[in-house]
């Protein structure tokens, strides 16, 4: 395995069987996938395409029928590899009787963190996901969005090197979506690798470096977003401040050059950007701050200075 790859799968196949061991469905068919260190990788596909099955195989929750899967060069069941992974499932599956603070302390204990360290990380994460005001209320009474924030926080409690996010923006309002996307970008900038699935193609487009499209268990396309979406024989100019006359003149020049009519449009901002602009006016869109213990580069710098 290449040391620069955090995830590698070769011919991964998963066949689900019924009680009598008869094959029911082949959910993943010979998948070859590579996720590199520090990149945000998007796994796209319609329902039943095998995205979640792939993720569950990578986490050791399901065993592949054949093929190999490696995470940090080790099989998914390896505890050393697991200690470097953070996982947010599509449905948060939190214990409803625990408060967010207890939830984070519990998951911190599963990483073997000491009490003080766990407490510090818990408080920083609660602040980061904006749940410090509801830290002592039972999670079972939370809205889906709030539970999602707790789920996200638990995925980060070990300061993971690989973050696996299954539909991370599901159930979140546009502000929450924006924050998650900002967080993903900030973490990636800090060297964290991210593997995420989403039905919301705009989300993937916003944050992913590379994407793979799966359908019926097979990989149909893979590559950098820019490369996949580029139309090599078309060019777009974005110019501000031209009057109608200048636009007509430019258009005439280009048409006479290429010999056929050109398309002309007036770009608009995305609905998400407009929405955020509107709600930002009352100050609800806060400047997103990553929990201090997650800032790997700063922490590394501090450790070097101490040394």
């Amino acid at each position, binding site marked *: 395995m290449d040391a620069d790859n955090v995830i590698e799968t070769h011919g991964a196949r*998963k066949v*689900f069987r019924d009680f009598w061991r008869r094959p029911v*469905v082949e*959910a993943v068919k010979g998948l070859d996938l590579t996720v590199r260190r520090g990149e945000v990788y998007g796994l796209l596909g319609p*329902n*039943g395409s*095998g*995205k*979640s*099955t792939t993720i*569950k195989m990578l*986490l*050791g*929750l*399901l*065993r592949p029928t054949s093929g190999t899967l490696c995470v940090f060069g080790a099989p998914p069941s390896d*505890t*050393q590899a*697991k*200690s470097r*992974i953070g*996982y947010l*499932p599509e*449905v948060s*599956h*939190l*214990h409803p*009787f*625990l408060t967010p603070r*207890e939830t984070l*302390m*519990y*998951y*911190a*204990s*599963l*990483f*073997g*963190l*000491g009490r003080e360290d766990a407490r510090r990380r818990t408080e920083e994460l609660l602040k980061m996901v904006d749940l410090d005001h509801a830290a002592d209320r*039972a999670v079972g009474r939370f809205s889906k969005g709030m539970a999602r924030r707790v789920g996200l926080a*638990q995925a980060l409690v*070990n300061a993971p090197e690989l973050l696996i996010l299954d539909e991370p923006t599901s159930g979140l309002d546009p502000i929450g979506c924006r924050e998650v996307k900002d967080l993903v970008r900030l973490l990636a900038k800090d060297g964290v690798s991210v593997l995420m699935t989403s039905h919301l193609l705009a989300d993937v487009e916003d944050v992913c470096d590379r994407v793979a499209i799966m359908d019926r268990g097979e990989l149909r396309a893979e590559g950098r977003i820019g490369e996949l979406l580029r139309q090599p024989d078309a060019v777009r100019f974005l110019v501000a401040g031209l009057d109608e006359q200048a636009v007509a003149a430019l258009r005439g020049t280009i048409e006479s050059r290429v010999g056929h009519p050109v398309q002309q449009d007036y770009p608009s901002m995305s609905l998400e950007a407009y929405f955020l602009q509107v709600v930002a006016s009352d100050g609800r869109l806060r400047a997103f701050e990553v929990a201090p213990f997650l800032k790997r580069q700063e922490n590394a710098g501090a450790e070097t200075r101490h040394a």
Partner: protein
Amino acid sequence: MLRRMKESLRRMGGVALLATRGAVRAKVVAALLALLAVCVVALPGAVKGDGTPDGDLRILLSYTLGFSFGILCLATLWSACALFAAEIDSSRIQLSVVKPVRPFEFWVGKWLALLAFNAVLLAMVYVTVYAQLQWHLRRNGWTAADCLVSRRVARPLLPSPRESALQQYENLRAQNALPKNLTRREVLRTLEEKEDERYDGINPGESASWRFHLPRPLGNADSVTVRVRFDTEFSTREKVKGVFRLAVPGRTDAAVVVPLEDFTQNEIEFVVDARAFAAAVSADGLRDFELAFHHGGDPKSTAALMLRSRQDVVLLTPGGSFVANLARAALIQGSVLALLAAFGLTLSACFSVPVAAFVATVLLVLTVVANSVVGTISAEDEKQWQNKMGIAVSRTVHWASDHAMRVSPLESVTCGERIEGGVLGECVLWNMVLMPAVFTLLGCAVLRRRELAEGE
């Protein structure tokens, strides 16, 4: 290494704390406390004793501790059955198993939570019952030294069940009365199983005697209690006349004779002061005794005295305090609960909640039934092929439960019999170390092999 151990302990502690919080917040503990309060506080007010100090206290102890233990057994078993299964069924386990936790740490964490729970609840029950005992004593003006006793038990020196079975086998062979179609091994096993429950009959005009060797010499100020439980021949239910004679073997000057007159309890218990044998004290101290019974009834009558020599005839000598004995009984019960917790957890790793609870309950009932089934298996039963599976299961369950409860702690405490350290150690080793280790291996193997998620 040390760091890894610390981390492992933290993980187990985290899992245990989660299980504890779940039980407290799901109000399982509150419901359990309410039920135990009914058993320990309300039940003694509803049952009536026989008016004697022994009878009253025996009823109080056996009802309160017996019912509480029964409730705790069921609660432990069913809670354990739900611990893994509910998390797997609700997919909550997925978030935990993707963390660097080994199945062993999960298993032990949950088991420790159940252990801690049971320890606290059992301690509460025993302390409350002891407080009630003291209150009863004070109210009735009874003295604790007479009523709350702990005595060492000496049983007759008899051949081992295996030796007895061999002897009976030889007798049957000599009489040409061995059952057909059964191997020697099968006949010996049946005879050995029945040995403990075998009744000996003492006919009118006949005598029987039993030799004893006390585990410790009897002190001058001590006393020895003789206790014999018996029955008369089942068909006639006639009363028996006779005398018991306790003596130092080979000495005619050191003996006490007590007539058998009272049949209300089908039990005779008499106390003999050690000073009665002062003339016979050897260098080894006063340790060897012989108890004899002579049936003084009409030789023409059929009224035999029936008793099981291995169980019904005992000498009791002072041995420790009642409180220490009560604590030993609590420890044995606690160890049984630990075993049930381990068993339930393993079922929980294998099946869904309802299936695990059903299997656990069936096996619990089988455990209760197996002891009596094994005692009634006849040579004829063994011959029939349709019985073979049932007999094999009953024998296995009986064997396992026999190891789990080498002694009945409640019976020992209520009869004032000291639970010996060796027996206690065997129970604790079997229930809290060996069997949980086997169940841990099984449960962890299942957790490692089982897929804990489903496809899309």
